[in-house]
């Protein structure tokens, strides 16, 4: 149960950072925290009490194993999170080159 609370706690912290902070780098760190929270939630769904890692070793009988599917999902989700973060950081570099500041409130060239 504590894993669920921890995972959703990370999700809410990440969302709060992304929605309220002004500096772009802080917003991207919030994105990273959000991704981490979601991945933790996905893995904790698959846990089976007293199970071990789903890898057979030589000479062991059938032991209780945790669910391998969420681990595969999280493998994919981590890579997708890294890809988005890399692209976002390159956009942050370009933004700083054009505007000279990373403050999102000041970057408002487009009118309504």
């Amino acid at each position, binding site marked *: 149960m504590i894993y669920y609370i921890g995972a959703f706690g990370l999700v809410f912290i990440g969302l709060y950072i992304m929605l309220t902070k002004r500096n772009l780098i802080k917003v991207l760190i919030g994105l990273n925290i959000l991704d981490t929270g979601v991945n933790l939630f996905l893995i904790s769904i*698959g*846990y089976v*009490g007293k199970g071990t890692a*789903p890898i057979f070793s030589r000479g062991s009988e059938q032991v209780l194993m945790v669910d391998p*599917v969420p*681990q595969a999902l999280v493998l994919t989700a981590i890579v*997708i999170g890294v890809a988005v973060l890399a692209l976002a950081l390159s956009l942050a570099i370009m933004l*700083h080159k054009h505007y000279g500041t990373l403050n999102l409130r000041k970057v408002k060239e487009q009118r309504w």
Partner: protein
Amino acid sequence: MRRIIGIVLLAIVVLGITLSLAEIPFGTPKTHVGDYYVNEGVKETGAVNIVTSVVLNYRGFDTLGEITVLFIATIGLGALLKTHKERKKKRDVTPASLVLSTGCRFLFPLLIVFAIYIIFHGHLSPGGGFQGGAIIASAFLLTYLGCNRARANERRYKLIESSGGLVFVIVGVLGLIFGGYFLLNFLPKGTPFSLFSAGIIPIIYIAIGLKVGSELVSVIDNMVGESV
């Protein structure tokens, strides 16, 4: 006013999440799909690491999408950061101390050997292509930081990235031609626990490992060349 709305909204969301999570008790086995993979995985795919057989065999299409996502991020990064003129400027940093540069040069081949071990044994122990690729990238990052090494050759990285992805798609299409299903495991499965087992899984993992490693190194290379 906004804070009150925000707090009320948050309370509703938390209540809703608790209601749904009450359906998912922690620590109980929930699925028949997971049990099937654990029980039948070794017989059907030959890989002892069940997570690998799920990632590459049962849900191999997701892995194909995942390497595409990393490819897009690398290409997008290269396209965006290329519009600056000063990419090839040599960095003016203080050179690293003797201990640091010697240590980096000593550690670099050890890291590469470790990465190759993890990639090759993806189906036998925890590990695989993505993990090994990340270790290769950290080996190169170490030399950028410690040894002040020269810039990388972009053509070589492009070649490795494209060929890695193309190998995966071609193996899938070969499965379609030989067996009638995309990504069918058509090579012999061998005996479990030996290095050359599990059909197409080691081949794909080697391609993925090289691809991910070269992509992450070229991302680091592009970002190191930026002077902000």
